[in-house]
């Protein structure tokens, strides 16, 4: 199978992943963002003496001046961003999968693709979400955004490093006379210790959630954010896996000619 055909499947799966993440954002995340923007708007109103009515087009950052982009455009822009993110992730996914396919596709491309998607979700989505949880508008403190961004980026890189370390350990162990079961059990232990260690040792967000943001709203937003990320990775793994399986079946039908 040529690299180009793997890459094309990655792009197609990425478009599907982006569309499914945009759909989940629209259904689950946007309603919570709307509630959060209402809180921001209420704050602005208090600052301005409470006399004026709510602006019809809410600025995303609670400023009193005319917004640069309307809410409607922001919702559409957000959906388009989700699709573009899906395509970029799909391209990276296809390149990485092509590189590790030999070791990952022992039980077929669908299982291999879903495995890589699960690793991707765990490393660059779930781990950062546990260390620096997603926040709706009205929560983040502008003065700590640099600090939180650094923490987020470091966590993301460590999330990429964990599976690489586990694979390296697995290779080392496979050189010894250890049984496969013991080796896999040790791999799981190493992965668990690394992940739990990172979550415990990495400092959390320094922000204090403002009093006017209900805990329910924060929880709903974080669950919706994870749901959206999970939808993206699941769709990517499924679509890419199925496309690769179909291509591989095409390859296999030619094999009996050789036999």
């Amino acid at each position, binding site marked *: *199978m040529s*690299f180009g055909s*793997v*890459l094309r499947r990655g792009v197609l799966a990425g478009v599907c992943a982006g569309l499914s993440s945009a759909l989940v*954002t629209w259904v689950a*995340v*946007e309603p919570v*963002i709307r509630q959060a923007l209402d809180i921001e708007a209420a704050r602005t109103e208090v600052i301005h003496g409470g006399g004026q009515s709510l602006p019809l087009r809410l600025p*995303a*950052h609670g400023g009193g001046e005319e917004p*640069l*982009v309307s809410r409607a455009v*922001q*919702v559409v*822009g*957000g*959906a*388009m*961003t*989700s699709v*573009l*993110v899906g395509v*970029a*992730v799909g*391209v*990276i996914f296809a*390149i990485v999968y*092509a*590189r590790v*396919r*030999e070791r990952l*596709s022992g039980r077929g491309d669908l299982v291999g693709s879903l495995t890589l998607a699960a690793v991707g979700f765990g490393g660059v*989505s779930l781990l*950062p979400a546990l260390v*620096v*949880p*997603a*926040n*709706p*508008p009205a929560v*983040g403190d*502008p003065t700590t*955004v640099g600090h*939180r*961004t650094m*923490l*987020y980026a470091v966590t993301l890189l460590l999330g990429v490093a964990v599976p690489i370390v586990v694979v390296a350990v697995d290779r080392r162990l496979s050189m010894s006379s250890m049984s496969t079961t013991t080796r896999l059990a040790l791999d799981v232990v190493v992965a668990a210790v690394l992940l739990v260690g990172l979550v415990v040792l990495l400092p959390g*967000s320094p922000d204090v959630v403002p009093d006017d943001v209900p805990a329910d709203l924060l929880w709903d*937003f974080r669950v*919706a*954010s994870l749901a*959206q*990320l999970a939808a993206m990775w699941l769709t990517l793994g499924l679509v890419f896996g199925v496309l690769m399986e179909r291509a*591989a079946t095409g*390859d*296999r039908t*030619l*094999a009996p*000619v*050789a036999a």
Partner: protein
Amino acid sequence: MTSAASASAVSPSVRMSVRASAVSVPVWAWALLAVAVFTLYVLAQENGAVLSAPAAELLHELTHDARHALGVPCH
């Protein structure tokens, strides 16, 4: 003549079945990977490090909801 024809008919399929698990990744693919990572950076994080301030602000507003949803730290 016949054997040569059958050999050439067989060899491509043999190659295919052998190559089914391995995909050789060309060097340009790693440049493409870098471009994809940079695209993710622009979509998720760019706030003026690469673009001019007004352009970055417009980009921030357009990508605002997706950035929040993806869990990127924000204001």
